């Protein structure tokens, strides 16, 4: 990754006019994608991410705002110029979109035919690329004879044929099973590293972002909710949407209604023993830690922890007994919270 911006999405908005009025798909999107990075765009379905990727290569013309690709403002280009620029932007799709009536090798040659590369040269390049994606032995096969993962590999080889500067991936792994997804992602990572090509990945799966992206933009409700380095967004998600992706199940812990608390005094038990964790595992009851102040002094745990006990009498008793059996000083404190 360098500091040079290869794609600059500037104040981009897109709306569609339908029978039921105007639908806003994207609103004021600003993203800078650096040369050589793998950039992820994540969002729930309907968030506008597929529209966004189509705006990057102007398959969809933005309603306002623009995209600056490699120094060229795409909104100012003529149709012909735009077609030429697209030859330096590869794209792969969820449904692969291979030409079903052409062999694998002819599919890879296809963008080269469009770019009017001499046939011999095109074939040579196509074979090299099939080698890269590991499908040289399938050159003469038809797409219908390939598995999903193999089809996506052909699509990747095809997208790379014209030596593009960027590769746009629209839900490229969403139709694949987990292990195939991993191998496709590994291939993309490899291509990014070896060829230095910038990759933009659109997905709804957090695991894809985790696996290969360096930076991520989270799209929610037509807007960017959050944008930043993947570790940053993952460890300290700021927006509600980001949190939803990072903690997908939204695991809600039932709130403790009990007021019954007890204080556990540590005065010399080995600090190497995870007392509370063991207690939870053995008693199979959860507790809530209200306050804790313990120190490790020379391998001994010293201090106190206040826990909130379950409301059920039996469960609470079980915990108290367990702690006492461990030789800890336990006293009940009422209305601690």
């Amino acid at each position: 990754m360098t500091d040079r911006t290869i794609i600059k999405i500037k104040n981009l908005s897109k709306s569609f006019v339908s029978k039921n009025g105007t639908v806003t798909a994207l609103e004021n999107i600003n993203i800078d994608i650096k040369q050589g990075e793998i950039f992820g765009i994540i969002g729930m379905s309907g968030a506008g991410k597929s529209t966004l990727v189509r705006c990057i290569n102007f398959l969809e013309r933005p309603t306002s705002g623009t995209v600056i690709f490699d120094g060229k403002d795409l909104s100012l280009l003529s149709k012909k110029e735009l077609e030429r620029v697209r030859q330096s932007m590869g794209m792969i799709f969820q449904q692969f979109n291979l030409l079903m009536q052409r062999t694998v090798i002819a599919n890879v040659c296809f963008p080269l035919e469009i770019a009017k590369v001499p046939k011999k040269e095109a074939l040579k390049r196509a074979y090299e690329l099939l080698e890269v994606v590991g499908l040289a032995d399938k050159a003469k096969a038809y797409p219908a004879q390939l598995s999903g993962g193999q089809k996506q590999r052909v699509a990747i080889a095809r997208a790379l044929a014209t030596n593009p500067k960027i590769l746009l991936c629209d839900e490229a792994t969403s139709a694949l099973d987990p292990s195939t997804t991993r191998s496709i992602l590994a291939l993309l990572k490899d291509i990014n590293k070896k060829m230095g090509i910038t990759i933009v990945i659109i997905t709804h799966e957090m695991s894809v972002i985790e696996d290969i992206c360096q930076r991520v933009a989270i799209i929610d409700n037509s807007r960017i909710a959050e944008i930043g380095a993947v570790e940053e967004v993952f460890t300290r998600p700021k927006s509600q949407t980001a949190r939803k992706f990072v903690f997908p199940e939204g695991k809600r812990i039932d709130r403790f209604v009990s007021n019954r608390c007890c204080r556990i005094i540590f005065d010399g038990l080995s600090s190497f023993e995870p007392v509370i964790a063991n207690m939870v595992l053995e008693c199979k009851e959860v507790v809530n830690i209200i306050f804790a102040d313990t120190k490790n002094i020379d391998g001994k745990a010293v201090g106190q922890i206040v826990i909130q006990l379950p409301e059920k009498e039996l469960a609470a008793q079980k915990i108290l007994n367990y702690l006492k059996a461990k030789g800890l000083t336990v006293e009940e404190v009422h209305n601690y919270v």
Partner: protein
Amino acid sequence: MFELIWQGLLETLYMTIVSTLLAYVIGLPLGVVMVVTDKDGIYPLVTLNKILGVIINLVRSIPFLILLIAVLPFTRFVVGTTIGSTATIVPLVIGAAPFIARLVEASIKEVDKGVIEAAQSMGATPFQIIYKVMIPEAKPSLIVGSAIAITTILSYSAMAGIVGGGGLGDIAIRYGYYRYQNDIMLVTVAILVLIVQAFQEIGMKLAKINDKRN
């Protein structure tokens, strides 16, 4: 009698095949234009699309027998005569071209939109999309369509017998209908059935061989 029917058969095949070819020369581009200029097409030209659509429907709604007679002056202008199998080719082409345009339009609309989008993402021009994606990808369906077209044109050509258009239909009308020679009528109809069968079979086989999707 054998001589007569053999002659009729050759004339029928001549009319049908030449008419089909010429009708495709008009119908194929017309069908492609209908798809391409559609409002969701790769080169939308809505007004042109609507006008062509109306013309196609108009010609298609004229019963062939009436078209056959209505274009007689035009036929004389083009061919120099209004009788015989060459003269019949004119109304056959006019009648079949819009029908073929619709068949072609339906076949090309079946092509996966995603594949067309992929071609656009590679910077393909509309023209490249037409001849490198739409037509090759629709090929099996286009072949099935051409089998339908040729058999329909064959049955139209038999109708031309009523105005002395030559071919098996002419024989069936002149000998079988006007002179009550039922045997000739039966033989000609049987031959027509066989030709339709043959064209249909060949079309389906070719479509299957050309389809790489399975």
